[in-house]
Structures are given as C-alpha cells and as structure tokens.
C-alpha cells in the first residue's frame, strides 16, 4: 500500500528534514506533515510544519485530523554528545512511547510505521559476531544509558508491532552516519588533525553515507519492508584504514587499560569521546546489511566511498566556510508562501499544499543539476554559493562549468575551487 499522507516526527533533525524534502518530489504523496519541538533546518516547499513536543494527545489530533496513513519516526537521539542523558532518555524512551500511543487503537488511520533506530542496539562486546544479523540480540545487557534507551525504544516498537499485526512496522537500525552535512562524534573525531586510537586495537567499523540514510528511509516509506533491517554501507573498514583514506595519521594515545579515565582527560582538552564510541574504538562493529538489500534497496556509496567523500569534504571545508546555508524557518513567511492567494503557483516556489501537480523539486534543486552552467539562474549566484555547490558536480559538469565561468564572469575563487576539485578527483 503506497503512503499518501505522511507524518514525520523529528523533522528538525537532519534526516527528518532531508526525508521530507525527498518525499515532496512524489506526486502521489498528498500530504507531508512534520512535527518537532524545533523548526526544521532545511527549506521545505510543500511539507507543513507543526511545532509540538512529543505529547501523544497533540500528535493524535494531528494524526486523526490529517488522516495520516504513515508515520516516520526520525526523532531518536543516537549520539550522546548532542544532549544530556536525561533529555536523551526523555526523547528516546518516553518520546517513543508517546509517538506510538498517538497511532494506537483500532480506529487509528495509521497503516505503516517506520522507526529510525541505531546499531547501538547491538552494543560492542568482545564476544560479538563480526556481522550482526537482525535476529541477534545483544550478548550482554546495555552498558550505557544511550544504549539502554535505544533498547527500550525498540522494545516499545516491538510491542506495538505485536499488538497491531495489520500495521506494517519497519525498524531501520542505522550504522554510524557520515557525510558533509552530518555532525556526529565520529565526524568530529575524524576532523582532528591526528586521530586518536586505543593502543593495541584496530577496530572494524562500518558507516553509512548521509544520502543513504535518507535513501533507506525513503525506500522504507515507498515500499512495504516489514520487520527489522540493518542499514549500513557495504564494506567494513579497520579504523587505521579509515584514517588512511582520510589522508591523516593516527596516534594510539589512549591506553588500553583505564581508557575511560583517559577519555575524561581528553574531554578537558576538548576532544569528546562518548562511551559508546569508546567501546566501538575498542571492539568495533559490523552489520549484515543483506536483508535490506533483499528488499530492493541499493546503497549509493560503500563505506570506503563514504569515507573518501568525507575526506574530500574536509579538504574543501576551508573554502566553504561562511558559504553554508543560511536557511532559517520563519513561520509567517512559510505560511504566506503556502496559503496566501497572492502567491502565484510557479513563481519561485510552488504553492500547492495538497495534491501537488508535479512542479516537483525543479525550483529548489536546479543548481545541483549537472548542466548548472546553462541554467538562467546560474549567473545570479554569488561566488561563495557556487563554490558551495561544486562538490555535488561530477567531472564533466565541472569542466563545463569551468568553461562557462572563464567565458563569462571569470571569478578567480570559483575557478580555483574547480581546479582544486579536479586535482583531488584525479589524485584519488
């Protein structure tokens, strides 16, 4: 059964926002409603945002009023540095209960629930298998509060699935995400000039590219993928291999015994290593991602490619500084654009709220197209905006853009950034 009316909880998170953007492109999706405590951080065209906390009575009213048939829960906190343990517990354990309570009951219109979970569910132990499959339960009880909360949350989802056999419940356990736009403990660690390691350990790690996180969620919304699935890119890399691909060096400075104390000392120095990550740096973790591939999804990046992409981004970052997106959610503006009769359908942004007629994503994504140089809008872009878009282009497009830029503006910042990119491509 295709999803037509979708509610996304946690739309202010990176993946929640990106997922809403992706789903906007489908004509058969009638309504996309995002709820969260905080406004979304990405620009949305027709998806609507309602600012509510995860209280089940409020969400229930939205579910009933909008006849939501699919709930996507992207709210889970999977990185313990983003918030305090208490708030994480509130969000992960209690929040999940509330969100599920909102689609509970025989008269609920919800037919499908997609729950974004994390591979912290499995934990990291000495006697782990090298590749976790979905049926495996962790060999030991959870060690950190975050792991405990994630196990709790999944238990709530499992109970919900058992009580509602007619609802398609998909749980996606994601490996650690990496990508230019993601800020996680791992990306912070990899941003250090020298990457610290635990002496005598070279753990096996698996990551997933940010585009694949969104891709997996989108696939789960568009197809019926019942049950639990691991989502991780192909290939498991040793930490030393990852550091090598990033073009950095590593330093085994953390002692194998008393690692926790050393990590606490490192925190004083400004290097935050959360306890889950510390365990991963010791034992590593690999996932068997074949079940989700069997549902038809194909990952766009392998773990190795994901790491290479991150390295490319890290090298480009000094260039991009300040050119980052400046999108801020302004309630009045968003409402004006969506509902005012003065807004014309195709002027700048499409105004349809329901039953979008295929204006799709042409407006927002135009500069990302390979043929960016031929677009009329290109010449209006500022140099730093162009530079920010460069990494999304492939070799041919870069060459075309270079020719176009030399012929017209000839801006040196842009030309130099393109040269740099081409050089890196050639090197790697």
């Amino acid at each position, binding site marked *: 059964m295709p999803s037509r009316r979708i509610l996304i909880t946690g739309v202010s998170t990176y993946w929640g926002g990106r997922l809403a953007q992706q789903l906007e492109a489908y004509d058969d999706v009638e309504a996309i409603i995002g709820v969260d405590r905080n406004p979304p951080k990405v620009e949305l065209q027709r998806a609507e945002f309602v600012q509510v906390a995860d209280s089940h009575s409020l969400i229930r009213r939205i579910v009933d009023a909008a006849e939501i048939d699919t709930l996507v829960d992207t709210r889970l906190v999977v990185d313990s540095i983003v918030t305090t343990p208490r708030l994480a517990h509130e969000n992960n354990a209690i929040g999940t209960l509330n969100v599920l309570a909102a689609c509970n009951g025989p008269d609920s219109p919800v037919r499908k629930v997609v729950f974004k979970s994390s591979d912290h569910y499995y934990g990291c132990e000495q006697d782990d298998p*090298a590749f976790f499959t979905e049926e495996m339960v962790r060999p030991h009880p959870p060690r950190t509060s975050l792991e405990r909360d994630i196990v709790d949350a999944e238990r709530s989802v499992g109970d919900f699935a058992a009580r509602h056999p007619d609802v398609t419940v998909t749980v996606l356990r994601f490996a650690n995400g990496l990508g230019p736009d993601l800020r996680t403990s791992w990306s912070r660690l990899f941003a250090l000039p020298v990457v610290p390691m635990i002496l005598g350990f070279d753990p096996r790690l698996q990551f997933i590219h940010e585009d694949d996180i969104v891709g997996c969620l989108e696939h789960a919304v568009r197809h019926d993928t019942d049950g639990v699935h691991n989502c991780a890119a192909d290939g498991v890399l040793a930490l030393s*291999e990852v550091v090598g691909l990033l073009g950095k060096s590593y330093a085994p400075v953390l002692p194998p015994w008393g690692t926790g104390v050393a990590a606490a000392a490192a925190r004083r120095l400004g290097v935050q290593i959360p306890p889950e990550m510390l365990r991963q740096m010791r034992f590593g973790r690999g996932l068997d991602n074949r079940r989700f591939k069997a549902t038809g999804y194909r990952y766009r990046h392998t773990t*190795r490619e994901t790491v290479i992409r991150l390295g490319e981004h890290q090298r480009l970052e000094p260039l991009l500084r300040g050119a980052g997106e400046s999108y801020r959610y302004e309630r009045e503006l968003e409402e004006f654009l969506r509902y005012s009769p003065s807004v014309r359908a195709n002027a700048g942004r499409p105004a349809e709220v329901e039953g979008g007629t295929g204006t799709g994503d042409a407006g927002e994504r135009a500069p990302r197209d390979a043929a960016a140089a031929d677009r009329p809008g290109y010449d209006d872009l500022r140099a730093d905006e162009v530079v920010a878009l460069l990494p999304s282009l492939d070799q041919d497009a870069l060459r075309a853009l270079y020719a176009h830029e030399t012929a017209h503006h000839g801006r040196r910042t842009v030309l130099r950034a393109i040269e740099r990119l081409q050089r890196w491509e050639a090197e790697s």
Partner: protein
Amino acid sequence: MTPARRARGGAGPRADATAPGTRLAPVDPPTTPPEDSPAPAGAELRDLLPAIEPERRLDDWGRSERIEGLFDRTVADFLYHLWFRCEVEGIQNVPADGGALVVSNHAGALPPDAAMIAKAIREEHPRARPLHITVEHFFKGYPGFSALLPKLGCVPAHPANVHRLLCDERQLVLVFPEGRKGTEKLYKDRYRLRRFGRGGFVEAAMRARTPIVPVAVVGAEEAAPIFAQVPALKKLTGLIYFPITPTFPHFGVLGMVGYLPAKFRIRFLPAVPTDDMGEEPWTDKGLVQRVSDEVRETIQAEVLDMVQRRRSVWL
C-alpha cells in the same frame, strides 16, 4: 569517480525476501547468548554479499594481504621449512573449492599448529586457498593481539562468523574444538585430546552443508611444551593462561614464540560429508554429538598412530 561498484549483487528488487517468521519480535532478556541462526534463505542472500573492492588492502574481516604475506614469507616460511620441517600427508583431502571446515587437535603454549596448517595448504595444495583461523574471543579484547591477529587471517570463534565464512563466502575455516582446554594442558598430558566442546563445530558444518576435514598434527606438543600453569600471574596479566615453558616467562614476551625445533607431521584425513544427513540434522543433538565424537576418535587414533611411527621427536 566511482571505484569498484558492486560487481555481484545482481538480484533485482525482491519485495518478499524476508521470511514470514521474521516479524519484529519483542526484545527479550538480553543476556541470552545469540543463537547462531542460519541466514534466512541462504542462497539468495549469498548474492547480496558486498563485492570485493580491489583498491582495499583489508577485507571485511580485517585481513590484510600485505601483512599476512609478509608474515608468510618470513616467520611462517622459516618455521615451516627450517625449524619444524613440516611433513604433510593427504593434502588432496582438502577440497579445492567451496566451504570446508578443517578440524584439528591443538597444543602448545602459543600454538604454532594453526600457522603451520595454513602454510601447509598454501605450500602443498594445488589451489593455495586462504585459511580462516578461528581464535578465542579473548584475543579480540587483548591489546596488541586485537589489532594484529585479524590482519593475519584470524577470526573470533563465533558460530555466526563460522557460518558466514562457510556458507556465504565458501571459505576454508580452521577450528580447534578443544579450544583453550587443548592449549593449556600440560606436557604430561600430551597427545591426549580433550573434550570437543559441545559439538558446535559439527552444527556449524551441518548448517552450512559443508564437509568436515579432520587433521592430525604431531609435533606441536614438543615444540611448545607447558610444564606448569600459574593462576596468580594469569589473573595479574589478564591473559587466558600463564604457562611455564622452556622459554617463558624468563625470556619475556619473545619467550612466547621460543619454539623448540620439533619435527612437525600434519596429516589431512578424508573429509566427512554433512550434507547427506537429512533435513536440519543439527536439531538432532544426539547425531551432532555422535559425529563430533567420531571426528575426535579419528583424530586421536591418527595422532597415536603418527606418534607410534615416528623414530625421533626432533628428526
């Protein structure tokens, strides 16, 4: 720039590949040990294994061809040809393709037998197949070993790991069912095989429908004899055991690899097929135990035969 796009992975969209019984189950007491459940619909999932990326120096298990090759050309080569002067019989019993579980007796403080069996297959077999050596989980948690052993082709002895290697990747896997009980036994108990665990290795082979190749090794007991165990020092160092050997601990860490030049004899025995035992033979614990005991008896008999025939421990 899209290096090494998946080469295998040909299976198209298959909406219903998940078995019906795999619905989300409520999480249960997490203390129960993980069941080595068979991969659902093994043959289909095999096509979805990640393809090999030729640019990588390590595989998904953390094995490094470079480091393994270096070890093979230096240490293993020296030990195999000069120090232990290995003598190999029955190499034709190791299948040239497909998964197979190599089962051997195990002895020696830091046992040299695994490396010698791997080297024997590489040297003598017409198709020099890599051998995946299963080791105690302890090594994954001990600094140094944890970083080094996977690079040399060692894999923690988890049933799921063995199953993936045998069934999905169709590799050769070496197990020592005696485990730690074999290596910590004292010199006076030499060539008396310990209990073969709970028959987990037979179950693994049955699930993967791969043959079991028993191997008898003679020489390891004399190469690294253990005269005594010191439990107090074992606790202090966190090692799995703390042996007194001719060279350890008085020569320090290097003493661990101070092997005596005993003559090694390795005999590969005819393979025991496990795919003709009916549907799901691993559910019959009696059958599992019987096969396990048979394999143990076979190896024990061969070991005694080889010890009986040899003229000298050293030559």
